[in-house]
C-alpha cells in the first residue's frame, strides 16, 4: 500500500471538484483520508482540502494522481525530516520520533528512504553519507548521532488488511474466547503451518513453563520433529522444567502422568545441576544424558534456542542470556526472518516478542488469561489470532492435525 498527499484549492465545493476527486479515488479502487479541510465562509472565498490518497501499488497511485491533477489536485510539498544530534551516549535528543513496528520512511535531501528494520519503540538515526536510516534503541545511540525529531518528513505505511479471505490470518485480529469452539481455527492453523513449512517460512515458538507442566511438552517436541519449529524463545524455567521432566518424570516436582501429583521440589535443582555439569544442553544431548523432551528435540532438529533469564531463575542453565539488553539484541536478531510466531502460555515473554515482531509476521497467542491474549495480539492488528484456552489442549489438537495430514500424505524425512 502506497500513499500520496494531494491538495485542492479554489471553489472546490461550488464546482463539485471535491466530490469529483473523492469519487474518482474510490472508483479506481484507491482510498482517501481527508487530513484537513477549510471551507470558505463567504461566497467568493476559496476552500482548501488536504487529502491522503492510498492505493495498492505505486503505478495505480501515480496514474490516479495524474488524473486528479487534471482536476486541480496538487501533490503536497513534502518537507525533509528534522534531525538533532544525540546529546550523549544512550540518550536521544528531546522530541525524538518514537517508531512503531510499521514500515516507515523518512525524507531527507528531498528523497524518501526506508527505516530498517521496522522496529517498535525506537528512535530513527539517519546517516547522511550512507543515505540510510535505521531504528535504534537506547543502547545503540552514540553522542552526536543524528536522530529524527518531530513528525515532519516521516511517513508510516501501515500493513493493510487483506480484502479477500485466503487463510486463517486474513480476519482482523480474531480472538476466540474461552467458551467458543476452537477446533476449526486450529485445523486452519495447521494448514497454514504446513504451507509455511512448504514455502520455507520460519516458525518461532515462544513458550512458557505451562507447556511442560501441563504435559504438552511431548506435543511440542513432536511439532519440532515434524519440522514445524525453527526458533524457540523461552526462559530458564521452561528449559529447567523440560529437562527435569526428561530426567525425573516431573516438572517442578509434579508428575503429569498422575491424577494428583505432588512432592519432589528438589528435582528441578538436580536437573539444572546435571546440565551445568555437562556444560550445557547440547552437551547433555551429545552425552546421551538428555534423551527426550523439548530441549532435546531442539538440539536434535537444529532449532535455534534463545533462552533468556529472569530474576527468579535458579542456575542459570548454561546458554541462558542473563544480560537483558544483550537478550533483546539476540531476540531481535533471531526474529528478523521469522514469518510465523506462536506465543504459548507466557505473558511477559509473549509481550516482549510481540513488541519486536514485524507487522507482517502471522501471530498466534494462546493463553488461559484473556487479558494476556488481548495485549499480545494488539501489536499485530491484521495478522493475529488469539485463543483463550489452556495451552495443552491447543497443542494436542494442533499436533494431531499436522500429524494426521503427515501420515495421510507422503511422509518427509526431516531429521538432520
Amino acid at each position, binding site marked *: 500500500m502506497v500513499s500520496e498527499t494531494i491538495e485542492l*484549492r*479554489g*471553489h472546490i465545493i*461550488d*464546482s*463539485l*471538484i471535491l*466530490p*469529483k476527486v473523492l469519487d474518482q479515488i474510490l472508483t479506481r479502487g484507491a482510498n482517501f483520508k481527508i487530513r484537513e479541510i477549510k471551507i470558505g465562509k463567504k*461566497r*467568493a472565498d*476559496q476552500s482548501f482540502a488536504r487529502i491522503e490518497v492510498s492505493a495498492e501499488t505505486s503505478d495505480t497511485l501515480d496514474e490516479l494522481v495524474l488524473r486528479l491533477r*487534471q*482536476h*486541480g489536485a*496538487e501533490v503536497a510539498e513534502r518537507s525533509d525530516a528534522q534531525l538533532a544530534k544525540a546529546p550523549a551516549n544512550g540518550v536521544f535528543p528531546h522530541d525524538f520520533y518514537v517508531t512503531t513496528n510499521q514500515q516507515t520512511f523518512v525524507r531527507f535531501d528531498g528523497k524518501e528512504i526506508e527505516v530498517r528494520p521496522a522496529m517498535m519503540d525506537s528512535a530513527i538515526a539517519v546517516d547522511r553519507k550512507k543515505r540510510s536510516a535505521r531504528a535504534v534503541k537506547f543502547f545503540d545511540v552514540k553522542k552526536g548521532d543524528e536522530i529524527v525529531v518531530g513528525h515532519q518528513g516521516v511517513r508510516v505505511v501501515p500493513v493493510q488488511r487483506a480484502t479477500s479471505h485466503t487463510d486463517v490470518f486474513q480476519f482482523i485480529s480474531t480472538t476466540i474466547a474461552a467458551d467458543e469452539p476452537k477446533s476449526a481455527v486450529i485445523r486452519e492453523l495447521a494448514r497454514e503451518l504446513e504451507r509455511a513449512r512448504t514455502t520455507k517460512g520460519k516458525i518461532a515458538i515462544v513458550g512458557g513453563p505451562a507447556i511442560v507442566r501441563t504435559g504438552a511438552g511431548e506435543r511440542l517436541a513432536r511439532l519440532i520433529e515434524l519440522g514445524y519449529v525453527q526458533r524457540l524463545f523461552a526462559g530458564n524455567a521452561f528449559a529447567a522444567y523440560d529437562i527435569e521432566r526428561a530426567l525425573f518424570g516431573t516438572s517442578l516436582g509434579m508428575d503429569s502422568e498422575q491424577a494428583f501429583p505432588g512432592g519432589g521440589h528438589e528435582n528441578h535443582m538436580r536437573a539444572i545441576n546435571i546440565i551445568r555439569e555437562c556444560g550445557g544442553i547440547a552437551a547433555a544431548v551429545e552425552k546421551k544424558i538428555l534423551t527426550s523432551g523439548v530441549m532435546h528435540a531442539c538440539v536434535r532438529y537444529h532449532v535455534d534456542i534463545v533462552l533468556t533469564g529472569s530474576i527468579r531463575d535458579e542456575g542459570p542453565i548454561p546458554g541462558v542470556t542473563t544480560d537483558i539488553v544483550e537478550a533483546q539484541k539476540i531476540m531481535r536478531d533471531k526474529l528478523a526472518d521469522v514469518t510465523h510466531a506462536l506465543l504459548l502460555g507466557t505473558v511477559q515473554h509473549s509481550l516482549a516478542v510481540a513488541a519486536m515482531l514485524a507487522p507482517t509476521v502471522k501471530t498466534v497467542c494462546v493463553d488461559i488469561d484473556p487479558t494476556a491474549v488481548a495485549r499480545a495480539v494488539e501489536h499485530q492488528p491484521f495478522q493475529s489470532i488469539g485463543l483463550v484456552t489452556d495451552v495443552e489442549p491447543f497443542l494436542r489438537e494442533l499436533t494431531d492435525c499436522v500429524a494426521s495430514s503427515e501420515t495421510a500424505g507422503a511422509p518427509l524425512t526431516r531429521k538432520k
Partner: protein
Amino acid sequence: MRELLLCPPDHYGIEYEINPWMSRARGAEAAVAQEQWKGLYETLSKLDCKIQLIAPQPKLPDMVFTANAGLTVGKKFIPSNFRHKERAGEAPHFAKWMEEHGYEISWLPSNLYFEGEGDALFGGDALFCGYKFRSDIQSHRAVADMLGCLVISVELVDPRFYHLDTCFCPLPDGAAVWFPAAFDEYGQRAIREHVRELIDVRPEEAAHFSCNAIVLDRDIVLPEGAPALVASLKDRGYRCHELPMTEFLKAGGACKCLTMFMPQREG
C-alpha cells in the same frame, strides 16, 4: 453601451489543425469568410454597441477569434496563455493593444493555460470557467484570486466543444443556453445549482455552434441553423439575429468566438 473587440479576417485560414473541426484539406473560402465577418460587423454596428478593431497579423490566422485574447473585467485585462504554440503569438499583440487602450494588464503565471473569454463567462455573480481541452483548472483559481469572485469550474468532455463559449451562453435574465452533453456529470450539476433556468440546445443545433452567441441585452447574435433555439429565445422576448458562419465553423468558431467584450463585466 457595450464595447467589443473584433479582428478583421485578412489573414484568416485553416493553416493548422488544433480541434476536430479544422481540416487543412478542406480549408476555408477567404472571400466567403470576409463576407460573413462583414455581416457580423454590420449586424453588431446596428445594435447598441461600440466596435473596436485590432490589426490582424500575418501567420496568426486565428487572431480573428478575439474571444480568446483574454478576459476583461473593469479596466483589468487578463491575457490568455494559449495551450497551442500556433496561437501563442497572438497574446503579445492583444496585450499591447489593450495596454495602449488604457487597460491594466494582469498576466497569469506562464505555466497555467487560460484561453480568455472563450473559457470564462459571467452568469449572475459567478464566473463560469471551462477546463481540460484548452484552459487548466489551476488558471481558474488564479483568475478567482485576481478578480475576487466565485468561479465555477466545469469540465468539458466533448472535444468538439473545446471552449466553454461553444456550449454555454448565459443570458441577462439569469437563465443560460447550454448543451449539457458537453459537460461531465459534476459540471452539469454545478451549472444546474448556479443557474436559475437552463435552455437545452438540441445536439443537431449545438453542432452549428448555436451556443456561440453574442448577447447584447435583448439582442442575440448567433449562427444560423438553430430554429428550435431561436423560437425558444423569441418566446422569452429576445430578438435573434441569425448569421451564416460556415467558414468560421470550419475552424471551430462562430459569432461569440469572433468578439470579446471590453469589459465582460464592470469591475
